């Protein structure tokens, strides 16, 4: 009797890892060449990138892992949605909704909630993300509005909503800066060690990944989500699955994870709400999820890689005078390479579909 069930197949994990490493190497090489062509000191820039991400304990814990945390949460959100066949491009807006509601809880309700403030902020932050995604889910089922469009639009609405909050009801008491007052201590995620920027949200993110993996793998609901995403017709006809309901659930859960990302970022890192609380985590999340092959466990690795790249980019700008945006080029390259490499990965039909891969040879003659 086979016993490798319920665990990822060793070969597929190895192939995935090899592809990821190969692709990352190729992208860094491309970065090096691009920097050389631009007449910059490429070697020094890459050294700074290394220093700023994994070169020291400080860089690792206070920069890279902190950056990776929201990328893992939102990466999981996007991976879950894509696995269900839902093109949720709105993790950014859902993140902002989560952060905004967590700010409301932390700033207004802390006196009443006491020690329950932080858990409430996180829970309601997740709920806000689900609600924000729920708008797109409802538009999709009720009016057939493509979620690709609606979620992007909702990102802007969320952004301007936060802009209103931090200039209106949530603005700090002096009414000078467009941001909220700092959160009280009871609304803050504690640091993992005193004086460290790294907070317990990182641990939560890393633990969420296997939980989501298990849900997709071992529960009936996860199975329905995967079936609906891979072949909605067969899910309906052979599985008698209510695919509309199933994808809706996945959409809401995806929104909740993105909302949690916002709540964690607010309560663990920024401690105040402002418009630029996310430098586009919800968009980078799409790249993270794709690089991970839509596998929740892979999202942790991809999130760490992108967290490292972004942390290193800041160091690169500081120490080697290379604009941090070149890292965006690397990230984009990574995703393109991964999609191009999708055909060599097992269980990557979804990725191939995203990449617009060649259809199967026609059946029959």
């Amino acid at each position, binding site marked *: *009797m086979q016993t490798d069930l319920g665990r990822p197949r060793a070969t597929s994990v190895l192939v995935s890892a090899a592809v990821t490493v190969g692709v990352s190497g190729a992208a860094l090489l491309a970065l090096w060449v691009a920097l050389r062509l631009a007449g910059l000191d490429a070697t020094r820039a890459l050294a700074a990138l290394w220093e700023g991400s994994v070169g020291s304990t400080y860089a690792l814990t206070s920069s890279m892992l902190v950056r990776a945390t929201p990328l893992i949460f939102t990466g999981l959100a996007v991976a879950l949605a894509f696995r269900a066949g839902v093109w949720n491009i709105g993790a950014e807006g859902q993140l902002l909704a989560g952060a905004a509601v967590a700010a409301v809880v932390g700033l207004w309700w802390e006196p009443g909630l006491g020690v329950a403030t932080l858990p409430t902020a996180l829970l309601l932050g997740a709920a806000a993300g689900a609600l924000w995604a729920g708008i797109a889910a409802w538009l999709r089922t009720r009016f057939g509005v493509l979620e690709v469009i609606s979620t992007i639009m909702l990102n802007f609405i969320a952004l301007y909503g936060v802009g209103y909050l931090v200039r209106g009801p949530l603005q700090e008491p002096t009414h000078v800066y467009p941001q909220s007052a700092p959160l009280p201590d009871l609304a803050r995620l504690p640091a993992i060690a005193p004086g460290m920027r790294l907070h317990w949200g990182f641990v939560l993110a890393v633990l969420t990944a296997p939980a989501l993996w298990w849900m997709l793998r071992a529960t009936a609901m996860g199975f*329905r989500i*995967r*079936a609906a995403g891979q072949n909605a017709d067969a899910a309906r006809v052979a599985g008698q699955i209510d695919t509309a309901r199933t994808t809706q659930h996945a959409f809401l859960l995806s929104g909740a994870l993105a909302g949690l990302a916002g709540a964690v970022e607010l309560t663990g890192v920024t401690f105040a709400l402002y418009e630029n609380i996310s430098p586009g985590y919800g968009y980078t999340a799409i790249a993270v999820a794709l690089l991970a092959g839509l596998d929740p466990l892979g999202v942790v690795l991809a999130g760490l890689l992108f967290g490292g790249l972004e942390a290193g980019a800041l160091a690169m700008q500081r120490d080697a005078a290379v604009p941090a945006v070149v890292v965006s080029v690397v990230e984009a390259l990574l995703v393109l390479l991964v999609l191009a490499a999708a055909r060599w990965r097992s269980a990557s039909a979804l990725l191939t579909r995203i990449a617009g891969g060649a259809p199967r040879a026609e059946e029959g003659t």
Partner: protein
Amino acid sequence: MSEPPALSLEHIARRFGSVEALVDASLSVRAGTVHALLGENGAGKTTLMRIAFGMLRPDAGVIRIAGEPVSLTSPAAALARGVGMVHQHFTFVPAMTVAENVALGGHGRYGRSEARAHVEDVARRVGLAVDPDARAGDLPVGAQQRLEIVKALARGARTLILDEPTAVLAPPEGHERRAALRGFAERGGSVVIITHKLREALAAADDVTVLRRGRTIFTGSTATVGADELARAMIGDAVYEPPRRTPSVPRDVVIEAVHLAAADARGALRVRDASVTARGGEILGVAGVEGAGQHELLRMLAGRLKPSRGKLRIPERIGFVPEDRHRDALVLDFTLYENLALRGAGRARGRIRWPAVVERTHQVMAQFDVRGASPNEQAAALSGGNQQKLVLARELGDLPTAVIVENPTRGLDIAATAAIHRQLVAARDAGAAVVLYSSDLDEVLSLADRMIVMYQGSTREVALNRDAIGRAMLGAS
């Protein structure tokens, strides 16, 4: 010296990835004749004709039109040389009129009255009635096929290729179509009919070429060849005998449908008034020309589609084998055991116990003789026949009270077909009610204990008699 063949394909080879669709296929169509290209599903017939029509390039081999070697880079190139094709799945624009569809693809100005006159002229010459002003999508399927033929001829086809032309027609309409094609050939044209039906090849054609697994096995005149010889050429030495049927032992009524109505996905009313009674221990055959509403009726009986009107009683445990297994029955990127778990997934709660599912997969795979992959491999790795056996294993493995089966052997070879038929009879003998639809009337007739025929959305019970069924499929009494 005799005239060169109108169309000749010599030693054509073509592969798709790792699949060799054509290995060494040759076909020579004499001018003024009807030629049948005969073969099992999957033998390479359509691939060969797509090459002749410029839709696919051959990997090796020569194409000659009227004796001259040609390189066909597109259907337009083939049409320019007088080769036209009517596909099994039609290619007109449903929202346009017949005349507009025929004019489509032409050049220069579109003149409405010229287009109509052209259509009428072509239709009259070939003896096919079409209404140039009718919206193509509103036409019954037989008229749509006439449109497709007229379309090809209006573009100057002198050699006309038809892919399974009678699959969508009731038998009497098929006779009519054959007469029109015969007339076209007698006026100097040539016709190639792709078919997997031996009887049709013998009745309709002057010459016949048999393909098997991508090779030309036989070619000759239908006047001198016997049905036995053709059958052997088609299927090799494997001889198919329909499963021996003992008289059925009908049990309780398990499916009862009264005055059902239903619309298709686009909202068109497909089933108007269907009443069905199915008992355990019998196979209820369903016949009907394509689009008569059987697709929706079967889905209602299987509990997959809610009737918009009428009363329906079906058992809790019911299996369904849809005709398009790649779209509706299997998730090809799932493993075999995951595909097995699909049954009942809509109602499952909590955790799925995968080890038990795998064990059960081993079990039913052995029972239904599914070969070629382990339960851990993807369903895409299985051959078509084994995929279908897996679907059957899933739907029949837990001895359901009833099973609804739609075109269960489409695209399968003889051995797989025989296995599927045996399983259906076994399910009947075990007491299940089996409702079987096949577009191949012979298949239904060889298995059914009772028959109903669907015509324009209504059902009628008909005796097990080929002619009576054929008439009922056309709505005649």
